[in-house]
């Protein structure tokens, strides 16, 4: 198999006709005699704008430096070297095109072998904004909760909640249904959003907007013990920041990834604990307070943190 392809030889270029841009010497621009300049406003007879007084630069103070800036030295322009002014660019040598190797004109190209698609690894698909919002990152806490599935009990509970609202206003049941899901499955997964939307005959977007609005709904699995520490004024004065630090120390939770707004839950590597700051749990008189799962605890100062967690391990 001979795959030599015949390529027409290019015409030689008549280089004598080529003119190079920087081959000539560029003259130094003449100095402008500013005294002879006519200012724009002076041309018109009225109104006459007075020529601006020369600025005494020795009296200027430069802003934002704090200290007085030394007057910049005058630039001696005679010593400056301009690029491309003095140097004559040599004319390039002629290219001997007969010696050039053109790509793929010499070698034999092997026939591509068929792709074994079973061995191809696909990269993660790019998520759209909507998909990112319904995306549930997998945390170590996921082992504590069953995967979402539609059970008859769930359906029955949902129907009972839907019946609380007028027949034409079933959208009201979005929050109660999401609470049911979160209670049983730990968090709101994309599949559960679809289930709620189907159940209430809504577009899934209407459910997603609710999930992402309310801090009470979480989109990733918390630990087996989810501790919500109140961080608002009275509790902060009572020492809830210290309580949070202590809890993180005991449970080895790293809160550095927490962003305080969208992703507030931090899960321990073992998956047993997770912590989150809550806004005002309405028991300011007994600060600092926290919620462990659904149990309320008051007066939990940092030194009682260990005892609090222990009380759950025995149970």
């Amino acid at each position, binding site marked *: 198999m001979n795959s030599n392809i015949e390529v027409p030889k290019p015409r030689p270029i008549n280089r004598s006709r080529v003119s190079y841009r920087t081959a000539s010497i560029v003259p130094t621009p003449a100095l402008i005699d500013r005294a002879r300049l006519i200012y724009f406003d002076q041309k018109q007879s009225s109104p006459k704008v007075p020529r601006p007084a020369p600025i005494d630069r020795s009296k200027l103070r430069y802003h934002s430096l704090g200290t007085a800036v030394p007057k910049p030295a005058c630039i001696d322009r005679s010593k400056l070297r301009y690029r491309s002014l003095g140097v004559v660019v040599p004319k390039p040598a002629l290219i001997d095109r007969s010696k050039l190797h053109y790509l793929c004109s010499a070698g034999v190209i092997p026939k591509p072998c068929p792709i074994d698609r079973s061995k191809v690894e696909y990269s993660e698909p790019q998520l759209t904004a909507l998909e990112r919002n319904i995306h549930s990152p997998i945390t170590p806490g996921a082992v504590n909760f069953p995967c979402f599935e539609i059970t008859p009990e769930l359906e029955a509970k949902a129907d009972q909640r839907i019946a609380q609202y*007028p027949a034409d206003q079933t959208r009201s049941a979005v929050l109660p249904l999401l609470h049911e899901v979160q209670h049983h499955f730990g968090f709101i997964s994309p599949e559960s959003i679809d289930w709620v939307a189907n159940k209430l005959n809504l577009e899934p977007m209407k459910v997603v907007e609710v999930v992402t*609005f309310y*801090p009470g709904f979480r989109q990733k699995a918390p630990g087996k013990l989810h501790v919500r520490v109140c961080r608002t004024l*009275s509790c902060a004065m009572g020492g809830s920041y210290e309580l949070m630090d202590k809890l993180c120390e005991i449970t080895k939770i790293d809160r550095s990834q927490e962003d305080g707004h969208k992703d507030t839950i931090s899960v321990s590597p073992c998956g047993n604990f997770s912590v989150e700051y809550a806004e005002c749990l*309405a028991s300011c008189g007994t*600060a600092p307070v926290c919620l462990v799962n659904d149990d309320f605890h008051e007066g939990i100062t940092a030194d009682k943190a260990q005892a609090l967690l222990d009380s759950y391990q025995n149970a």
Partner: protein
Amino acid sequence: MSDIKYLPGKEPHANEHRLIFKNVDREGWDQSIDTYLNDGGYEMLKKGLTMDPKAIIGEVKTSGLRGRGGAGFPTGIKWGFIPPNNTKPVYLICNADESEPGTFKDRYIVHQDPHMLIEGMVISAFAVGAHTAYIYIREEFPEAAIILEKAIAEAREKGFLGQNIQGSGFDLEIYVHRGAAAYICGEETGLIESLEGKRAYPRIKPPYFPAAMGLYMCPTIVNNVESLCHVVHILRMGGEEYVKLGTPRNSGTRILCVSGDVKHPGYFEVQVGKITFRELIYDMCGGPKDGREFKAVIPGGSSSKILRCNESFSIGRGDEAKELSFWDLPLDFDTLAEAGSMAGSGGVIVLDDSRKISWVLNNITHFYAHESCGQCTPCREGSTWMRKISDRILEGNATPDDVKTLEEVAYQIDGKTICAFGEASAWPVEAMIDKYRDELIAETSEENEFKSPEQQEREKFLISS
């Protein structure tokens, strides 16, 4: 009243006058309906259902009851706003989304005395003609939601809810609706949006006054837990008798929740306006912690304006005007409004001299930046800016100009939003800057102006050349 025994250590103070909190911390008390019935419960419901609804509204108007949720709007007048020729169903909503920092009164009512709330709701629903009522309870009270649902089931069993209540022909269903930890759901139109299953974006008033266009665009009355409980006592005492409690235009009792730097924080039910700050904080709460002095008080939840303890105020108009020091101010709606703050929801937060104002400001701006619903631009952006600037002040990276910028941002939010959240987030900042400007500026430094990354680059360049 004297035969009621309270748990040891939880006895009410002598200055208290307990109506709503009568059964809170009571010895031998539980949430069951039998305990409530043994104490004469649901008698007012029976009495109310024999009355004319208009007469009940009249009694509540006579009583001068003002809403206990924060705004202090007269409850009877609110009920009267339902259009007279209305043909749509009317809804009653109990706002149990108690999320104002510093307030913790509703927690004890719904946890310890749920039947008083249900009785108040039945009477109120009968008065306004509602046949469906919702209790919007915050997500952070999971236990209370269970207690209330159990109480509702008990009441239905005994015939105090459901069809033809006590043979009067009046039907009412009460449902519990749990929120999801959003502060904005305490705003009545935000609450209604949330109850409709949407994001809790408050509606603009006018035209969306709940009494005309509320839940599902039907007339809706939204009342605080405490306000609804007061209805039971108004019916028992009669409006004429109730109005004698408290002071003129500030009738009845109200629950004050004291937290922060006092020896004995807690809740106190007192006659409105009969208690001054001195009596509340020194006599009832035991004064400052050892070796400390009081610095400032936030009198009505974190969104009210802070008051300095060494301030004095001119209260009253014309000839009746008098100069009162902070400690002699009575805690009623009008006096606190004249002092430049508000009685709000009754959450009194006390700060002593160990607290830096910049730290308090930072905590509060973090709260409001987190809780802004994001509907109106001034509040959504402004609350975040305020948080960032107060972070800078707290970390010591601010310039004196930052305090001015912070103040300007606050005034740009105030009054430019759909709901009162804008004011709630701006007022504390405005007041703290106004009253503690020197302290805040002392924590800033002119030199920080040169701490920006760009400036550091520029300085490095100048030094090297």
